[in-house]
């Protein structure tokens, strides 16, 4: 991972600090399985630099950006760079204090606290990824205020008050304006350093495709990148919704081709069918037809 950071042009001084951080806080053996091994890498020097610096300075970060900007990829990459165990906490409408920190339960005839993921993460010095933080109601997140700010504590009434491990960090992600999301209130936002995730550039998208599928021929990587940009163009001009703008679907489609489907069949499953509106599907399908011939398959797009 560190070599990758160097290739991204990150300052050597920051990398040295990351190494120092790793050495200072070794991971318990039992938690080693939680250290992620990223499948995809995040490309973007500026964002890397900002995120690393903020985490080194002890801050929590909030990654804000539309679909397909690599919020979760970056979060996972960061945990990997710092060699920290990762806890994934997905937020939803009914997320409440109990589901985050812990709740009373009955064990061997005794009432005890069943620890929630935030508690575990705080105790073990992990990186907590708070996914889609704005899906939850602000009121239920207020229990995290003391955890996220300078106090760095978790205080559950009736139980001990625990101090966060010095290497605990929280990385929240949100997609502003996504259906079902809420406004994040100031109190919560002020506890994070906010990184606006830029839309992936054509170059980086190509790198991503080629790294994930090294055998992919360059000219087809270009065509897929163009296809994705064209769909994005349609979304930007609100001709279609962002449902078909699906980076995961694009990556998965290439994988399907390597298994034997034709590229247009795979993209139909990975991209076109992501939108369930007939008309929208037709528009996306047109973009596909005007870009990828129907008979292109594994022989054509992969080297040997």
């Amino acid at each position, binding site marked *: 991972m560190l070599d990758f950071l160097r290739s991204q042009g990150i300052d050597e001084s920051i990398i040295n600090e990351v190494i120092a951080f790793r050495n200072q806080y070794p991971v318990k053996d039992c938690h080693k399985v939680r250290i992620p091994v990223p499948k995809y890498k995040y490309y973007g020097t500026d964002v890397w630099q900002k995120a690393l610096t903020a985490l080194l300075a002890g801050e929590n970060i909030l990654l804000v950006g539309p679909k397909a900007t690599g919020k979760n990829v970056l979060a996972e990459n960061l945990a990997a760079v710092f060699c920290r165990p990762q806890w994934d906490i997905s937020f939803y409408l009914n997320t409440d204090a109990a589901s985050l920190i812990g709740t009373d339960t*009955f064990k061997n005839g005794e009432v005890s606290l069943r620890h929630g993921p935030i508690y575990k993460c705080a105790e073990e010095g992990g990186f907590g990824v708070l996914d889609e933080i704005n899906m939850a109601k602000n009121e239920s997140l207020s229990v995290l205020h003391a955890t996220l700010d300078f106090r760095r504590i978790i205080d559950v009434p009736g139980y001990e008050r625990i101090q966060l491990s010095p290497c605990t960090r929280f990385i929240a992600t949100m997609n502003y304006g996504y259906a079902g999301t809420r406004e994040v209130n100031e109190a919560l936002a002020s506890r994070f350093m906010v990184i606006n995730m830029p839309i992936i550039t054509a170059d980086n998208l190509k790198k991503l495709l080629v790294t994930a599928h090294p055998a992919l021929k360059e000219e087809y990587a270009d065509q897929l990148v163009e296809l994705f940009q064209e769909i994005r163009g349609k979304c930007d001009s609100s001709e279609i919704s962002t449902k078909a703008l699906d980076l995961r679907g694009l990556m998965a489609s290439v994988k399907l081709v390597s298994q034997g489907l034709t590229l247009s069949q795979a993209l139909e499953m990975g991209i076109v069918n992501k939108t369930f509106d007939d008309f929208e599907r037709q528009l996306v399908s047109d973009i596909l037809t*005007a870009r990828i011939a129907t008979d292109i398959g594994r022989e054509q797009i992969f080297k040997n």
Partner: protein
Amino acid sequence: MEKISELQTKRAVNIIWTAAGRHDFTPDFKAYNEAGEADIYWNCIIGAVRLHYDYPQFESIFRAFQEYEDSDTYEGLLWLGLENCVYQHEVKQRPVLSSLREKYARDFLLAYSRNDYYSLYDALATAHYERVLGRERPMSKYDRKLLDELEFSCDMSTEDIVSRAKELFQRWFQICTEERKKQKKRYFLGFKKRENKGKKTRYRKFGIGIADHPDNIYGAGDSSEKRPEALINTRLSAQELRAFMETKFGKPVFNLRETMEIERELCSGSHENCHLLFTKGERIDISQVQNGFEALSRQREAAQIESNKQYYKSNISQNNTSILKLTSKIQNSVLLHLQPSPVKSNSGKINGSLVWRAVTVNDDKVFIKNEQDDMGYLCVDILLDASTSQQNRQETVSSQGYMIAQSLTKCGIPCRVMSFCSMTGYTIMRIFRDYTCPQDNGKIFEYVSNGCNRDGLAISAAHHLINKSSYEHKLLIVLSDVKPNDVIKIRPGISQEPVPYAQQAGITNTAFEVRKARADGISVVCVFTGEDEDLPSAKLVYGRDFARIQSLDKLADTVGMLIQNQIKNL
């Protein structure tokens, strides 16, 4: 030729946009196959012309063709030539084009092999598509020379192509592509200038399919198209009228394309010939207003706005108390509604009276968990009637509107305040404050009454706007005297004669639009400000969901009650 469906038009336009790499223009010329479906290959080419060349320069040639009887032939030939060079450019970036082109060529040749009649275009196109497939067909020396000249090479710049095309059409067909030269009609080989432009249909044959020739094709424009005189007594053209409305009421929220789309959806049927203007009231500076009458009415408006604000200020302490009262009223009902319900569970808060069950019957569910009922997100839209009938109570309406918005803001309930009025066929939806702009509450004082009221269209427009939001519960409060009245007539039934939009016809239409909004999950309630005699119509339109207020000071209270009821019913 049958009409092309809207879906296919939209498809064609989108393919053109994709190929052109931008979305900021309205394509004029679009291609469809025989079945009326958007043709991928040709629309790609049409779009790509704009990517690789300066399209407006070609436009003027196409426009000149429209003057001639055989414009379709010339148009087809020029597109054939352009296809040749654009394809060579575009195929480098879009390799799929080679297979699409071959397929199109094969389809074309197949379609034409069944055809007996043979025009010049057919002969050249057939030869061209044979060449695409790598074959050369026998043809006359002249035809071959013409085709060779026509197939522009990809090294040529826009200017080269334009000058070659002009020279070529002049030499072969005696066509003058210089614009608008008043010349005598030319007759040559049976090609003559079209005498009656209006006779051509919009969808005409193109290649093996159909091409869309809208009236304003090649930018020839319908800008001077007069509105039907019988409908509206104004000398302004459609564009001028829209521009006038925008100067008077403010810049539109939606761009022209979006507006057209909304109008197509809403201004049909009962609201035929009507137009909509959604605006936030951002207007051009008064110094730029040329029209003296307009400048005067601006001054009057400014005075009214000032008077609205003064009225509010003069009762500031009372008003503030009203706001606080209304706020706590709404907050209370929200809190009441959010009563958590306790559920037995195997984790949560221990319930002493149940512990024995764990020990003796091994039942772990000895805890109480509070399940919060989620009331979901509620949004409130307030639609104020801004027709002349409200003239004498503008101050009260605006300050009451302000107070409601202020209270809802304090409760964190998103609200939008709009007013509506109609003028020469336009229904103007003025948005004072949008859901996410609490800082705009003060703009509600800009409420000024003007013109007629087409309640049905206004409700349907509000319905359209509300539907765009993602809130789960939607409440629309209409402040109205339920006396619809507008200059554009309404047709009560398909075959019936239009009648004035007033009284029974207007009321029936408004009631219909209210039902439509309700069927869509929007609660529509009315704050009725009219007289006794209009009570039956209010009942007809809003059913039981209206509250009558004798004096407007009670507006905030009444609205508070309506919102409370709404929250209770969630």
